[in-house]
């Protein structure tokens, strides 16, 4: 474990391009699932990645855990390049918690076996030590007493409990980075807060970093320190979570926030600009800002220059030419 005081996770100018087989034949263009993304995360910090379908967040998750290799750029965790031999031998510094608690546990394994599997793969400890470690990991995930869960099967547990088992499995090897891909979206609302709190606590206790991927902006404030909003493969806005939610600067972030239903509506639901809806689903433009076709604030320059991220406040960067003037002021 390195004592480097810098960020424990570094995502440097990463690109991931997919070339669909059909395109190869016709000479078509590759799909840029991740198009030049950079960020860094400190120990004990949670970075939220918010985006809709097609934003590239799933590909980003796969890149972080080493299931995909970047076409360009570098991903390092605790100084080791993800997916390289050194990282794999060190016992996997990155682990993942998945969206579907029902499918993420092997129905034929007992809970104990599931949580011990990472230990077994890396040949850690004696069988007795592994049982101990598994029970301890379950207790850390608030399943108490840990020993009582070792012999049970996934179908005996509720969704929330299964997700805790998945978290125990992911943390049993003490990873440096935890990637949580929509970990609560398939759980009942009344159990979500517990899981979020658990994840946050583990991140701080074990001094890990966490990437929290979601499409639900309303929960990010309850777990993330920083938030990055992705659109079509690039980060359009990034910064401290409260700053983004209360004073968003990028038109896309603003649209996402405005679209969330209001819990105590005084007036009827407010309409969405037609331009936002009309161009949805089309391929992003070759030149200029990728959001321009849907942006109500777009000007001529937006179709020419692809905006680079500019800071609008400390730690808060926005990839928009008109960020400074479009930024909403916090109430």
């Amino acid at each position, binding site marked *: 474990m390195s004592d480097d005081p810098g960020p424990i996770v570094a995502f440097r100018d990463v690109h991931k391009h997919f070339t669909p087989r059909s395109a190869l034949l016709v000479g078509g263009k590759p799909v840029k699932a991740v198009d030049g993304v950079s960020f860094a995360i400190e120990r004990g910090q949670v970075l939220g990645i918010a985006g*809709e*379908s097609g934003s590239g967040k799933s590909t980003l998750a796969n890149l972080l855990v080493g299931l995909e290799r970047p076409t360009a750029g570098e991903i390092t965790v605790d100084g080791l390049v993800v997916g390289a031999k050194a990282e794999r031998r060190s016992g996997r510094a990155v682990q993942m918690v998945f969206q579907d608690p029902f499918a993420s546990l092997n129905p034929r394994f007992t809970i104990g076996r599931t949580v011990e599997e990472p230990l077994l793969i890396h040949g850690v400890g004696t069988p007795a030590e592994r049982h101990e470690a598994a029970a301890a990991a379950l207790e850390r*995930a*608030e*399943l*108490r007493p840990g020993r009582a869960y070792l012999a049970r099967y996934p179908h005996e547990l*509720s*969704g*929330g*409990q299964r997700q*805790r088992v998945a978290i125990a499995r992911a943390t049993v090897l003490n990873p440096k980075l935890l990637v949580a891909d929509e970990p609560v979206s398939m759980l*009942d*609302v*009344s*159990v*979500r*807060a*517990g*899981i*979020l*709190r658990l994840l946050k606590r583990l991140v701080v206790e074990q001094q890990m970093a966490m990437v929290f991927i979601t*499409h*639900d*902006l*309303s*929960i990010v*404030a*309850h777990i993330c320190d920083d938030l990055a909003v992705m659109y079509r493969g690039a980060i359009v806005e990034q910064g401290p*979570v*409260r700053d983004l*939610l*209360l004073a968003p600067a990028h038109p896309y972030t603003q*649209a*996402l*926030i*405005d*679209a*969330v*239903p*209001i*819990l*105590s*509506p005084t007036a*009827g*639901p407010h*309409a*969405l600009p037609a331009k*936002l*809806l009309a161009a*949805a*689903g089309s391929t992003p433009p070759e030149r200029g800002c990728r959001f321009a076709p849907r942006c109500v604030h777009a000007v001529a320059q937006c179709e020419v220059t692809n905006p680079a991220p500019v800071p609008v406040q400390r730690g808060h960067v926005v990839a928009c030419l008109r960020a400074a003037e479009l930024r909403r002021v916090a109430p």
Partner: protein
Amino acid sequence: MGALLEFEDISIVYRTQEGEVFAVEGVKLALAAGQALGLVGESGCGKSTLALAALGLLPRSARITHGAIRFDGDLISGKGESELRPLRWRRMAYVPQSALASLVPVHSIRRQFRDTAAAHGMRATEADARAVELLRQVELDRAVLDRFPHELSGGMRQRAIIALALLFRPPMLVADEPTTGLDVIVQRQIVNLLSDLRRSEGLSLIFISHDIGVVAELCDRVAVLYAGEVMEEGPTTEVLSRPAHPYTMGLAQSFPDIRAPDRPLVSIAGHTPRLTEPTRACPFASRCPFVREVCRTTKPARVRVAQGRSIACHFASDSEAMREAAARPGLWDAGQAA
């Protein structure tokens, strides 16, 4: 009474390999004409079962063991397929959760309209004309008619399904989680669309969702379900801003509000009961922070707490005090694993 749809003390049981599941217990609800009623609850609360029962679409493994369902005064529970057919689509239509699951993957959208029309006695030419009109209403391009379901995005499919449901201008629409799984911008579009349709067509709506935010915007009244029973019912704004039942209080507090990111979220300790046995106790007793002995032995009756509002709780008279206590997040989180 004049209610368009009425659930009269209805109980529904499923027969499964592992035994019986008591999905719905003694539900009394009514939807007035022109109204939008939201059915809110978590997994296993029975909301989808109620929707299917209202349409007569319960699977064979389910039976109504008690009570009745009335549509426009007529008894529909227990009616056979031949009697329900003339009602379906013409008087009550269904918008399911996953459009992909309900659209035939190998038929074009135009074909789906024609087939549905034919099944309920409308000619193909009329169906085509209606289809064009409906697609315009749901803001879809005419070209969609010639597309196949997999060629459309999730939001477009959902809008197509809504258009299909409105083919015969039914007075009532039953929508089962139509926005779940959709991106938030698309969800907003669907919610706006349903709201507009309600106004323009005078639709009555039963809207099922676990997302109380969407229900808050769309529905006049809401019924909160837990373990197959109604816990609270009343005007939406009232119920969600000043809940009277402990479960509603917990539920409302576990819902994040994007505009109030600093309000702490709570979770309700424990998990939903398994429904394999009918209970004589309050179903929420095992998780309720205000539980007392009587809650574990006797099922509470539905009690009126205000005009048009009722809850199923032994301590309805204390709801004010309970609400104040419930506002403290410390009350909910006992650190127990859910």
